[in-house]
């Protein structure tokens, strides 16, 4: 069963200079996921100010700068893992060093319910 671990961070987390210790912990986490054979894919995202929103309404393409103004937390990165069940996914989410400051959302992927 595949789960997305979505890392939601407050703006402040993006404003701070990159913490080398945290970066090293993040790298180690990625390696642990890989070594356990559960990693499908993963990526870190650039800060929210780099965001552009695209919608098509009434057949017209609309492009907007930046995330929604009311948003308090932003997607900072995601990992997709393949594990037997939710408990296993929650264990991996808890091991993510970002969990200490950010919130990790664990969501099953569509189409793997029977897998």
């Amino acid at each position, binding site marked *: *069963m595949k789960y997305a671990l979505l890392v939601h961070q407050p703006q402040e987390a993006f404003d701070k200079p990159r913490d080398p210790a945290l970066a090293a912990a993040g790298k180690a986490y990625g390696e642990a996921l890989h070594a356990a054979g559960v990693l499908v894919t993963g990526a870190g995202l650039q800060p929210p100010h780099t965001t552009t929103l695209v919608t098509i309404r009434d057949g017209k393409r609309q492009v907007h700068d930046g995330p929604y103004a009311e948003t308090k937390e932003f997607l900072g990165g995601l990992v997709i893992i393949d594990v037997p069940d939710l*408990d296993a996914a929650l264990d991996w989410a808890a091991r993510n060093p970002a969990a200490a400051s950010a919130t990790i959302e664990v969501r*099953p992927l569509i189409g793997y*319910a029977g*897998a």
Partner: protein
Amino acid sequence: MNDSATQAAIESVARNSYGRLIAYLAARAGNVADVEDTLGDAFAEALKRWPTDGIPEKPEAWLLRVARNRMIDAARHHQVHEKSEEYLQQITEEAQTVATTHDQFPDERLKLLFVCAHPAIDPAARTPLMLQTVLHVDAARIASAFLVSPAAMSQRLVRAKSKIRDARIPFRVPDPPEWDERVSFVLDAIYSAYTTGWDSLAETSSTHHALAGDAITLGRTLVQLMPGEPEAHGLLALMLHCEARRDARYASNGEYIPLDQQETGLWSHRMIDEAEALLRKAATFRSLGRYQLEAAIQSIHAHRAVTGDIDWPEILLLYEGLVRLAPGIGSLVGRAVALAQAGQPAAALAALEEIPDERIADYQPYWASRGHLLRMLGRTAEAEKAFTRAASLTDDPALRAYLFKQPRG
């Protein structure tokens, strides 16, 4: 056997078997919602056939066989994917084994309880989910006990069951590192069923009384499933101590009677004895917990039936332990009352006043206790105010009347 006796026997088998069957099927399917429908059909069939055919020797195997047939029909009808067929095959074989051997029907209810009280399940859905799946309590009755509309309760339950299936919450008994926390979720959900049944109006007691009874049944099941878990014993002891006093809580004219003035002859000494035996058993594990302490406090109150006295210093000691383990508002208020009864009303009032304002705004026992302490200190005007505040926070007319008459008493 006459008709009503047959009916009662069927209902008893159904009630006893439902939770086990649903746990068994759901643990294999990873899905509560679908197996519920199928089992519902199987029970309907039993109600139709058992009165004439007699109750089968292995009622669970009989029900499982019918449920299996229904599932196969449903699978053909909906053309479910291969995975489901595989598990249907597995269930078919196992049902056959259960039916033909003398093996005890596998009991997976503990896994089901852990799923119902899984941290990924909405806390407001945990207790209703347990009542519905393990005890087969009617959804409308659950809704009425929890004071929500049947539609809202049904939505809450459907959402929880979808989560179990779609997020694949595993049917497993947790391992030691998470054991204590996961067990506490199960205990809390069961206790919540009991307090929901207890804290409510005497007038509507039929629904609520039934719910308290359901909670005790769940507590008994848990002790049976976790014979080595002291807190399961503690929880059941606590519920039985409280339940033992049900008939003594109100006078025949409906007047509210506080615990320390209850007629001890009206207590159920059978339940008290059972609670005491459970507590003694729990103590042999030498691992204290919140529910054992709460039950021990109730045990001292129960002892008044023997000695005529309440050992408040001992109660205070137990509350000290409880406050360390579970510093909830209930234990903080309880400790303050014990302190006052043990002869230190001024220190007790100071302890009450340390509780943050946001936790006391709508907590009736805080205001009632505050009233008692102020009155002990001779501060009658303030006591009256506190009792009035307490009276405005209860939904029990008898308790309200009791609180209103306090300052003048």
